[in-house]
């Protein structure tokens, strides 16, 4: 312990600037609202960045596991300052409030300095973990992308900001700009929006799936062999706006992970927005987004085979509103398995057992046999869900199927 006086003296030696909007020049709240609202359906998190150098501390840093700074009323985590650079856009995406035909009357734009100062101020007050910067096309892809990059350059250079930055690559950006964006950011992303060319043409006829989107994703994949991109490349799809099936989305997801080497694929259930061409369409159920994330998790974290996951889809290629892991386990297990002899791969396929509890089971059974269900509960297994698939102490849970069969 030391005295406050000594600490105050030392702290005064370090120059401190709270930054924020320039004193006397207030930011128009309507601009903050409109450009913030423009990213409301963009999904992102501050996880997976791992660029801390041990023992070197600078202004701002990232936590590998991410950090939620608040939650909205609907329960969505607010981690980053998510905003558009400008809401002016010549594209005509039918679901988007910024589409040129949507009739949105006011267009706004930040300046790089204004946005960088605001980000630093929000970070200093611990309201955000970093910046998520997307944008409409504005005057042109190259110009707007250059200004977005300039914002991050100011953050990293002038303000020495070491926090998290996720930058959207605008469709049609040049390879050189993609490289610059990658050099300055933790994560970059190009939004797919739809699982195929034909589905995208329904959503956004002015975008070219191959040239505007997939080609940019390939740039990022190829460049990441030379440029360090700590949190990798991600993408996002709108679910339920173009009549696509979950199977189509899953097939695209496999391509994105296996061929384009993406870190994450995010989903956003379609919500009709007033003033857009899709205003009258039905909103998509949010459970569909949730089930797609579960399937994504089974593939990415649980490492289930693609053929196994296929069992979760119905004949029409849709997921039901139930845990896909249960549907897969019903196909997979003919009889209950004994946790004392099951392999790690088998354990992880049982609903209610995750990677952590499977590891705990594997470690415990080296010491002794597992003979009671409550032992599994103590290891973190959700026993009500796992019960029907397990045989513990020679006993199986009674299920309706077994009772009838």
């Amino acid at each position: 312990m030391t005295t406050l006086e000594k600490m105050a003296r030392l702290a005064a030696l370090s120059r401190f600037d709270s930054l924020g909007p320039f004193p006397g020049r207030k930011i128009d709240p309507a601009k903050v609202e409109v450009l913030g609202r423009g990213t409301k359906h963009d999904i992102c998190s501050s996880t997976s960045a791992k660029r801390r150098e041990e023992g070197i501390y600078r202004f701002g840093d990232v936590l590998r596991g991410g950090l939620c700074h608040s939650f909205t009323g609907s329960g969505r985590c607010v981690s980053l300052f998510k905003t558009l650079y400008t809401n002016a856009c010549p594209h005509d995406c039918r679901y988007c409030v910024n589409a040129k035909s949507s009739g949105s009357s006011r267009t706004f734009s930040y300046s790089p300095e204004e946005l960088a100062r605001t980000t630093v101020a929000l970070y200093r007050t611990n309201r955000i973990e970093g910046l998520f910067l997307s944008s409409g096309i504005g005057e042109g892809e190259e110009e707007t992308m250059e200004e977005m990059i300039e914002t991050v350059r100011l953050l990293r250079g002038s303000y020495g900001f070491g926090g998290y930055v996720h930058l959207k690559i605008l469709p049609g950006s040049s390879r050189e700009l993609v490289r610059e964006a990658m050099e300055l950011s933790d994560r970059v992303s190009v939004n797919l929006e739809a699982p195929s060319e034909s589905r995208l043409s329904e959503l956004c006829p002015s975008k070219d799936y191959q040239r505007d989107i997939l080609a940019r994703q390939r740039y990022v994949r190829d460049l990441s062999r030379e440029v360090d991109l700590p949190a990798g490349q991600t993408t996002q799809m709108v679910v339920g706006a173009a009549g696509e099936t979950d199977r189509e989305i899953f097939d695209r997801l496999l391509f994105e992970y296996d061929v384009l080497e993406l870190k994450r694929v995010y989903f956003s259930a379609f919500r009709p927005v007033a003033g857009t061409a899709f205003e009258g369409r039905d909103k998509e159920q949010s459970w569909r987004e949730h089930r797609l994330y579960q399937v994504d998790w089974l593939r990415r974290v649980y490492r289930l085979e693609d053929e196994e996951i296929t069992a979760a889809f119905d004949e029409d290629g849709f997921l039901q509103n139930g845990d896909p892991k249960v549907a897969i386990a019903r196909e997979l297990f003919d009889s209950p398995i004994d946790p004392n002899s099951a392999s790690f791969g088998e354990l992880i396929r049982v609903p209610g057992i995750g990677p952590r509890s499977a590891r705990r089971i594997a470690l415990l059974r080296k010491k002794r046999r597992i003979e009671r269900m409550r032992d599994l509960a103590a290891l973190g297994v959700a026993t009500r869900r796992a019960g029907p698939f397990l045989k513990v102490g020679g006993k199986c849970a009674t299920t309706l199927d077994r009772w009838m069969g």
Partner: protein
Amino acid sequence: MRTPENFVELLARHKNSDRRLIEHAKRLTPLDIETSTDPKVVRLRRMIYAVQGEIQRMRGFVRLSPLGRGVLWGPMSPEHEIGFYVADFFARRFPGTMIVLGDERRSWASLLTGSGYLRSRGVGVSTALEELGRLTDAEAKEGGEEEEEDRAEAGAESEVEAGLAQLWEVYYQSQDQPPRDGRRTFGGRISRRSLKSAGMETERGRANRRLGDFI
């Protein structure tokens, strides 16, 4: 595995921790804590996770405000004794800036310098801030033009602060998707306990408001 090497230290920070529990924990390894089915050890595990959870929540939810030059302070009233864990975290994020956190009874100050952390424990955040205010005033009297500039800067800072709070409120509302049928769609929430512990205001949205807020 989630149990860290310093689990005994974390356990000691739990509000219900005592010497007997700590002695018991010292005989265990992180692996024992993770894999044991003994109810006593399971209880220890839950206590360690509770402390870890609160550290993580406070890192995210505490809001900081500048106090003159070189000081950031924030209200924090944690359930467990985690003050320095959180203060050190912010000191790491803002090297050279003194972090003061606390409530009316306790305060924790931390500063990361080239030689490591300097820490000070106090009897309340307002007392600590008053003391810092006195020190700053005394320095200003001794100083010359530079301190005058600093005072002007501090005035501008408070103006920026007020603007920033408004900006945040507008931004936060812009991200909201109202809960349908009174249910939260995406599951995340800030517990009432955390709202109180971190003194959050803007985030006490519709779903978190109480009748008392309107009176």
